[in-house]
């Protein structure tokens, strides 16, 4: 049985992730530079050749990831489907998100050599989600 707190945290973090990625998608569509609160490398990172995977923009992949985590967290709470299946899918998605975040952080540090505030925020969000999943008994 998963407590309310980890589900609420996962839900909240993924909702924050949705708002972040929607902001980045809107800025990209409007061909505007997003606000970069810390540093000045956001534009360089977001416009680099690494901003897509298999032709899909990373912000869209991020949005899909966060929508899945948010929806799954809500469904686990509501107990709408067999919880064991939902938990397994949620854990797999969050771990794959963490792996992708490690890859993107590596790219920023060693390949592009610029830091993007929004990418780091997203990576931090995913890492915190992973810690919640590990500590809260999701894996059991």
């Amino acid at each position, binding site marked *: 049985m998963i407590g309310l707190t980890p589900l*609420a945290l996962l839900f909240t973090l993924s909702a924050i992730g*949705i708002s972040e990625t929607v902001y980045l998608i809107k800025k990209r569509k409007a061909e505007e530079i997003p*606000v970069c609160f810390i540093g000045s490398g956001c534009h360089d990172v977001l416009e680099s050749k690494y901003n897509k995977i298999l032709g899909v923009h990373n912000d869209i992949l991020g949005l899909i990831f966060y929508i899945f985590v948010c929806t799954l967290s*809500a469904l686990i709470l509501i107990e709408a489907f067999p919880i064991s299946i939902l938990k397994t899918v949620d854990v797999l998605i969050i771990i794959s998100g963490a792996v992708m975040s490690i890859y993107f952080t590596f790219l920023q540090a060693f390949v592009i050599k610029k830091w993007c505030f929004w990418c780091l925020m997203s990576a931090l969000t995913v890492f915190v989600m992973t810690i919640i999943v590990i500590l809260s008994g999701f894996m059991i």
Partner: protein
Amino acid sequence: MRKSGFHILRVGIAITFLWIGVLILKDPAGWSGYIQPWAANLIPVPLIEVMIVTAFFDIAVGVLLLIDMFTWIASLAALFHIATVLIVSGINQVTIRDVGLFAASLALFADTVPSNLIPKFLKPKVS
């Protein structure tokens, strides 16, 4: 309102509405208990159905606020919803939270309502 402050408030209220919607879906019968008997008697359909509709309404408001789309309509809907909650749930220990949510929704609405709508309601008619 400063741009960053507006977005923090918008996302915060969005998450609140989304999460309340999910919690109501989990236990609509329990949440219907917050409705005062006089208000429950006025509702012609089963309370659980009303709560389920309310949950989806809250989730819709939350989604619109989260993605910053039709924000003024969503914040107006949030205002009406919280006003209704304040009326039908009576005064208790957590009423003050609803007052805070009401004020936050009002701030969002005031900041996003289209400027061409304001004169229609607020500008005094000059004869």
